[in-house]
């Protein structure tokens, strides 16, 4: 049995049997039938639930005359992301703001979770979670690229002159796929290395010094969430640009 956080063990006690059945139906081998739900998945669900609660709370308490603290927070987030979106994407950035906000907030919350409390851990320190974010972003920006440019979207993959098309097309395809890799590894390795670094220095000097690295990890967590959002915005802006 793997070590489980409290929430994971609760979920496993409640849902182990149906989850096993679903995974069995999908032909996924379960290593521990008593505990098919791992910590990463639980933490992701928790982040999802917290964000949902936050958005519902903001929506319910929305008011023009007396904006509450939650509304101020939500407006600040929205303003920040809109500003970034306007700078990077330019005209027509409004329809991407919701996606960018959710992406940024989810990653920020997921990154900070491991720092907040010993009963939680960062889901982003498992490589599957950043891969999920990267894949969703990849599909999203290609969808919008095709939506805006139509069939002409393929020109972005072909380069400037026709006699180089055969060479540039594979290169461009590989570079687009490498974006998934780099997005995934950047977020995953940062969070994972941060945890490991704190642990390593804790084993060297158990007093005081690890606190510095916790502070560094806090900074890295915020910056990585920002960078992921920023890169998603940049890829979107490249995909929906007309001047190619």
């Amino acid at each position, binding site marked *: 049995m793997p070590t489980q956080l409290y929430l994971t063990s609760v979920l496993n006690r409640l849902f182990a049997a149906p989850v096993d059945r679903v995974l069995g139906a999908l032909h996924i081998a379960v290593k521990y039938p008593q505990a098919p739900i791992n910590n990463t998945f639980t933490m992701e669900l928790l982040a999802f639930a917290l964000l949902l609660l936050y958005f519902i709370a903001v929506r319910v308490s929305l008011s023009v005359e007396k904006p509450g603290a939650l509304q101020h927070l939500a407006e600040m987030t929205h303003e920040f992301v809109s500003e970034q979106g306007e700078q990077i994407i330019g005209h027509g950035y409004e329809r991407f703001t919701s996606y960018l906000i959710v992406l940024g907030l989810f990653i920020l919350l997921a990154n900070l979770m491991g720092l907040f409390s010993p009963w939680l851990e960062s889901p982003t320190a498992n490589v599957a979670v950043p891969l999920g974010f990267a894949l969703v972003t990849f599909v999203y920006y290609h969808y919008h690229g095709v939506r805006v440019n139509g069939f002409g979207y393929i020109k972005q993959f072909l380069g400037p002159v026709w006699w180089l098309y055969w060479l540039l097309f594979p290169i461009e395809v590989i570079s687009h796929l490498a974006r998934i890799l780099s997005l995934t590894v950047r977020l995953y390795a940062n969070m994972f290395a941060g945890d490991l670094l704190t642990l390593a220095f804790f084993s060297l000097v158990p007093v005081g010094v690890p606190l510095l690295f916790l502070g560094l990890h806090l900074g890295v967590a915020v*910056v990585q969430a920002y960078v992921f959002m920023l890169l998603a915005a940049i890829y979107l802006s490249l995909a929906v640009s007309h001047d190619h």
Partner: protein
Amino acid sequence: MYNTMRTMKYLFMVMAAMLLASPAFAQAAGEAVSPWTPIGAGLGMALAAGLCGLGQGRATASAAEALARNPGARPGIFTFLILGLAFIESLALFTFVIIFLYVK
């Protein structure tokens, strides 16, 4: 418009369902490890960290210089600085991940 929104909704629901099925990563175990592996890992990480530091130092130096010349351009410079640092840093992190994959 409404139809696209609905298609998008279903697309994202499917994506979310796929996201939930986090696959267990198979780990190769029981292979003989060369005695040179830790030294290679240390050297590799040291090279990556040192060169990454050099690159980030250059990037930050130019950003600071640009900021000193034109303090009004702070937001634009800041965005590019963060982006550049993230890209440079990710190269060192690739090394880290590869070392972590091969050295158990």
